[in-house]
C-alpha cells in the first residue's frame, strides 16, 4: 500500500514538472545580393518544403540578407503556428503566399551581411524558446560588409544547428578552389566556436534530412 502511494506521488510529481519544449524553430536567411538573387526560385522550394514539414506550435521566419541584416525590417515573413492543425494549415498557406510575393518583387542588395542575419536569427529563435533551433542560410557564404559595420563579434550558437544551403561556387572559386574550402571552413569554425552544429546541404533535390 505504502509503495503504491509512493509510486502515485512520484507519478504526480512527474506530471507536475515544467513542460519540455518539443517544438521546432526555423529561421531561414535568404541572400539577395548580386547574382545570387537568381537562386531565389530554389529558395522558394526550400521554404515550401520546410512549411510542409513543420507542425503546429512550431515557429518559422524567413529573412533577407542585405547590407545590414541585423534588423527586424529584413524579416519577410514570420509566424508561430497555432496549436490547432486546421489553423496551422491556414497560416502555412498565408505564409507561402507572402514568400512568393516577396520573391516575385525582390531587389538585389549591394552588400551581404551574413553575420548580422545570424545574430538576428539567434535573437528571434531564443525569444521563441523552441525546443529545437535551426538556422538555414541560403547563400554563397561570401560576406561583403559595407564600411562602418562592425561584425567581428562572437555569435552564441549553443543549441543551434546551422545549415548552409546551396552554397554555390563563385567565379573566383573556380580559379582557386581553396577559397571556397576556406570560406566553408571559416563559417564552420565560427559556428562550432559559438557552440553550434554546422552542416552543408548542396543537393536541393534531397532535402529529406534537412529538418
Amino acid at each position, binding site marked *: 500500500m505504502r509503495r503504491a502511494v509512493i509510486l502515485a506521488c512520484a507519478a504526480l510529481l512527474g*506530471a507536475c514538472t515544467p*513542460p519540455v519544449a518539443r517544438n521546432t524553430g526555423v529561421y531561414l536567411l535568404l541572400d539577395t545580393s548580386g547574382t545570387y538573387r537568381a537562386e531565389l526560385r530554389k529558395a522558394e522550394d526550400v521554404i515550401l518544403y520546410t512549411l*510542409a514539414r513543420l507542425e503546429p506550435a512550431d515557429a518559422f521566419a524567413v529573412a533577407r540578407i542585405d547590407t545590414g541584416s541585423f534588423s527586424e525590417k529584413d524579416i519577410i515573413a514570420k509566424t508561430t503556428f497555432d496549436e490547432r492543425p486546421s489553423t496551422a494549415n491556414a497560416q502555412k498557406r498565408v505564409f507561402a503566399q507572402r514568400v512568393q510575393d516577396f520573391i516575385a518583387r525582390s531587389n538585389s542588395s549591394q552588400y551581404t551581411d551574413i553575420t548580422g542575419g545570424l545574430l538576428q536569427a539567434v535573437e528571434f529563435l531564443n525569444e521563441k524558446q523552441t525546443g529545437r533551433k535551426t538556422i538555414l542560410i541560403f547563400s554563397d557564404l561570401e560576406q561583403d560588409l559595407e564600411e562602418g559595420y562592425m561584425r567581428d563579434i562572437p555569435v552564441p550558437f549553443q543549441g543551434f544547428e546551422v545549415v548552409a544551403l546551396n552554397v554555390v561556387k563563385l567565379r573566383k572559386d573556380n580559379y582557386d578552389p581553396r577559397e571556397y574550402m576556406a570560406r566553408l571552413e571559416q563559417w564552420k569554425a565560427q559556428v562550432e566556436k559559438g557552440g553550434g552544429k554546422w552542416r552543408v546541404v548542396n543537393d536541393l533535390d534531397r532535402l529529406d534530412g534537412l529538418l
Partner: protein
Amino acid sequence: MSMNVLLAITPWPAVSAVIWVVVLVAILYLARHTAHQAIRTATGAISRGLRLAAHSMAHAELRLAERNRDVLLAAGLEAKERIVEREFARVGETVRKDLANYPHLHRALSEAIGRIEEDHQNAVEVPPEAPGWVRAVETVSKLDARNGGSDVLADIHKSLVKAHKEAMDAYRKASSERHELLRGMMPRWRDVQQVLTEVNKKVESLLSRSVTIDRHMQEYEDIVKGQDKAVSILSSSSLVHFFVSAMVLLVALGGAAINFSLIARPMAEMVGGTSFIGVFKTADIAALVIIMVEISMGLFLMESLRITRLFPVIGALPDKMRVRMIWITFCILLLLASIEAGLAYMREVLLQDELATSALLRGTEAVVENEFLWITTAAQMGMGFILPFALVFVAIPLETFVNSLRTVLGLIGIGVLRAFALVLRVSGNGMRHLGTLAERLYDLPLFVPLWLETRLAANGRASHGPVEDLREVTP
C-alpha cells in the same frame, strides 16, 4: 612462496618435488577423517536445506491447488446457480404465459365437448314405428269377399303404400338432418384436437426444461460435494473460457484501436496538437480517455442489465435505481457515440484541408474532388457511432476473462511451484552424491597410503582369519 623456492629445498628439483608430494600426501592422509567429515557435513547441510525448500514448495503447491480447487468450485457454483436460476425463470415465464390461459382453454374444451355431445344426441337414429295395420288386415281378409272385403283390402293397400311413401320421405329427411349434424361435428373435433395438441406441446416444453434443470441440479450437487470429476470439468471449462475470452478481447482491442485512430487526430483541434502529458500527446490521451469512458459506461450498462456481475453493488441496487442507471449510462453512451461521429466527420474535413495545403506547398495541382468521398465520410461517421456501442459488449468477455484468469494463474502457479520443487529435490540429491564424489576425489591422491592401510588391515584379518572366514560363510 614461488614454485622455484619450493623446489630449491634440495639441490635436485625432482627430489624436492617428491619430498613435497610425500609430505602433502601424508598431511592429507592424516587429515582424511576430518576432511571427510567436513565434506559430509557441508554437502549434507546443503542437501537438507534444498530438500526442505523442495518440501516447502510442494506444500505451497498443495495449498495453491486447494485454493484453486475452492476458487473453481465457487465459480462453478455461481455459474450453475445462474443457469438454474435462468432455467427457473424460463419455466416461470412459460407457466405464466401459456398455462395462465389454462382456464380459458378448459372452458373452450368443455364447450366443444358439450356441443359435440348435443350434436351426437340429435344424430341418434329414431327407430321406425311398429306396423299397427297387420291385425286389421288379417280380420278384413277373413271377411267374405261378397261383403266387400276385397274393396277394403284394396283401400288398405292403397293407404299402406301412401303411408309407406310418407314414412320413407320422413326417414330420408331425418337421415339427411342427422348427417348434417354429424358433418357439423367435424370442425369441433378438429378444434378439440388442436387445443389438445397445443396443451401437449406446452407440457412437453415444460418437461424438457425440467430435464435440463434436473441435469444442472445434478451437476450442482456434484460441485457441492466437491467431486473430482466436477473439478476436472470446471478446470477444463475455465481454460477454454480463458482462451476464448482472450481472443474476443483481442478483437475488441482491435476495435478500440480503430476507434482511437478515428478520434485522435480531430482531438488535436480540441485540446491542441502539441501539448504533452509526460511523453504522450494530450490529444492521444484525451482520445484514449473517451474510449475508456465508453468502455466503463458499457460495463455499468451491462451490470445494470444484470448481464455481468463484476460489481455486486450495482447488481444489488433496487430495481428502480437500476433502471435509472440503465437510462443514464445509455444516454451517456449515446452522447459519446454522437461526439465520436462528429469527430470522425471532422477528421475527414481536416484530412482534406491538410491534403489541399500539402498540394499547395508542393506546388502540385489541387486535390481532385472525389465524388465518392461522402461514402468514406459516412462510413467513418457510422463507425464512430457504432463502435462505442459495440465496445459495450466487451464487458461479457472481460468478466469471463477475469473469472477464468484466477484459475489459469493458479494452474500456472501450481506448475511453477511443482517445477521448482522438482529442481530443488534433484539438486538436494545431487548435493548428497556430490559429497560422496568429493570424498572419493579427496582419496584419489592418497591411493598409496590407503593401499598400504588396506594391506595392513588384510594382514591383521589374516591373523584372525578362520573366525572372519567363518563369519562370512555363516548364512
